[in-house]
Structures are given as C-alpha cells and as structure tokens.
C-alpha cells in the first residue's frame, strides 16, 4: 500500500502545518509520516524523507513502549537533544506522527505551545470517527465520501 493511500486531507493539513512551523523561530525542518514509517510530507534540507520517516515512526513507537514505564497514558512528545539541535516527535492524529528539527538555541517550550495549537488543525481536518482506524482505513473511507 502506498503512503499516498492516506487521506489527502491529512496530507494537506500536514503541509499547511509544516509551512507554519517553517516560520517558527529555530525550526530547521519537519516531516509528517504514517505511524508505520511512510513519509507523507516534509520540509527537510537534504536527508531522504523515506529514511527519516522510518526512523521517526520507529522511535515514536519505541517511545510509546518506554513511556509505559511511567504509567498508562498516551505519549505526548519525545525530544532528542544534541549539541547541534533538537528533534521533537509527536503523534498528531491516529496513525500519524510529526517530527520537527530545530536549532540548538530554539525555544522548545514555545515550540511545544505552537505544536499544541497545531494539534487542533489535525483534529479539525481529520475524519471524526477514526479513533481505532489505521490511516489506510481512513483513506478508503474517504475514497467513498466527499473530500474533507
């Protein structure tokens, strides 16, 4: 199944979010991918989106497992900090993950606030009855219904 099988409304919403994030101070790139590691849209300078999507999705899934150590609650975010910058990972909709790459001096608290606002864009644009569906199910639903 191609990543293109995901509802185009998710990809469109994601592209708009990526454009807004690109204007956020300290943001160097971003990528939206399915939870099973297929790139949907991206704004990356150089690295292969397919490879980044694979690593992002796997890291989020492992982060969820690790988070279970803290108790049972959904993963909110995962931050990887290095001397060169940070990568912030989040699940933004059912089966969809977002990665944001920042500079080393980026204000991650402000980015976090911006990301929380952006979560609403995904919720508004995502079909409402997707709580247990995979992205591909969402896609098949939308092929039958009107665009969102």
């Amino acid at each position, binding site marked *: *199944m191609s990543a293109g099988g995901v509802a185009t409304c998710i990809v*469109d919403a994601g592209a708009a979010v990526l454009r807004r994030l690109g204007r956020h101070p300290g943001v160097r790139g971003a990528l939206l991918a399915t939870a099973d590691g297929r790139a949907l849209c991206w704004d990356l300078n150089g690295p292969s989106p397919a*490879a980044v999507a694979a690593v992002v999705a*796997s890291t989020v899934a492992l982060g969820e497992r690790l988070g279970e150590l803290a108790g049972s609650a959904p993963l909110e975010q995962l931050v990887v900090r290095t001397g060169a910058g940070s990568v912030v990972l989040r699940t933004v909709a059912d089966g969809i993950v977002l990665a944001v790459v920042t500079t080393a001096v980026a204000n991650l608290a402000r980015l976090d606030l911006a990301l929380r606002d952006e979560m609403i864009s995904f919720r508004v644009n995502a079909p409402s009855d997707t709580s247990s569906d995979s992205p591909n199910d969402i896609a098949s639903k939308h092929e039958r219904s009107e665009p969102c």
Partner: protein
Amino acid sequence: MAVHAVDPRADPVTFKVLVTGPFGVGKTTLIERLSVTPVVGTEVATAGGEAARKSTTTVGIEHGVFRLDDDGQPVELLLFGTPGQARFSAVREVAALGVDGVLLLVDATIEQSWPEAASLAAPLLAGGRPVVVAVNRWPAQAEPPAALVRALAMPVGTVWCCGDVVDRADAGRFLAALLERVLDGDAPDEPEPQR
C-alpha cells in the same frame, strides 16, 4: 525551505517490507547490497558471546530502498531491517507495523539458529502476511535443506528462495519473489501438517 508531499499519481508505488531473521544471518548485508539510498543503520559493537560471532549488531531499525519494476511500472520496496536477537522483540514489533510483506532470512549453515527463526516468524505469520523465506548461503538452484523446511514449519504455499545475500542478484531475487507474493495478495493460511 519548501514543503513537499507524496504524490500518488507521480511517485512510484511503495511497499513496506520487513527484513527479519535470527542474529548474524545477513540482514544488514542484504539491505546494504540492494539499497539505492544510503542505508540508515543502527549498528553497535557486540559484547559477550555475540562478539565472538560478529563484531557489530543492529539494535534499532535499518532502512533502505530497493527499486525494481513490475511490468514496466516502477516499484519501491521500503526495506525495514530488524535486530535478530530475542531480546529485541519490541523493535521487531515496531518495525512490523503496517508491513506489506515479510522476508524471513535464514542461514542454511547455522542450524542452531533455525528454531529461533521459527519462533521469530510465528507472530509475523499470524496476520496472514505474504512471507518469503530466503535461505542464505545455499545454492540458488537447489531446494532448501529438508531439515530447515521441517524446522521452520511454514504454512503451505510459503515461497522459499535460496542464494547468497552477498550476491546482489540473489538478494534482488529474494525481494522480487516477495513482491510477486505481495501483488498476488493471497497469503497461505493453513499450517503445515507435519511438525
């Protein structure tokens, strides 16, 4: 900065493939031989008994892309390699999310790893996914070793391919066989009678 998005009309069709198998059977080598993009690896140095067999091991996922064509249609297989050791089962589960097909790599010459290959394959077969068993270090034209076939107890209709992952043509054949299975769509579901 510019935002790019997948384009289902213009981009090649992609399938996600899990490349799995026990420790030290050649998963990393296969992906490195075939990938047209730089392979994303998570190899670290081994310690303890494993170090005697191999100096490095994959601890996270590995990612590469293999391009082939299906009757003139370009197809990309997104290769997701996994660690082989039992302790990394969580990583294998994560890599297996949403896969379209599974390449189970086994080494014909390391008999003690066959039971491990069988237990590794069991959860992957549960979903009825297309699976190809690639028998590494075994002549391409030969039938797979009968003892190996018995040890793995794969479902009836499972495709077996023999060869050597060091040979790019053999490695490519393994994946072409899997693509064929994926495009066929119907996975075997009855367990092999003998066990």
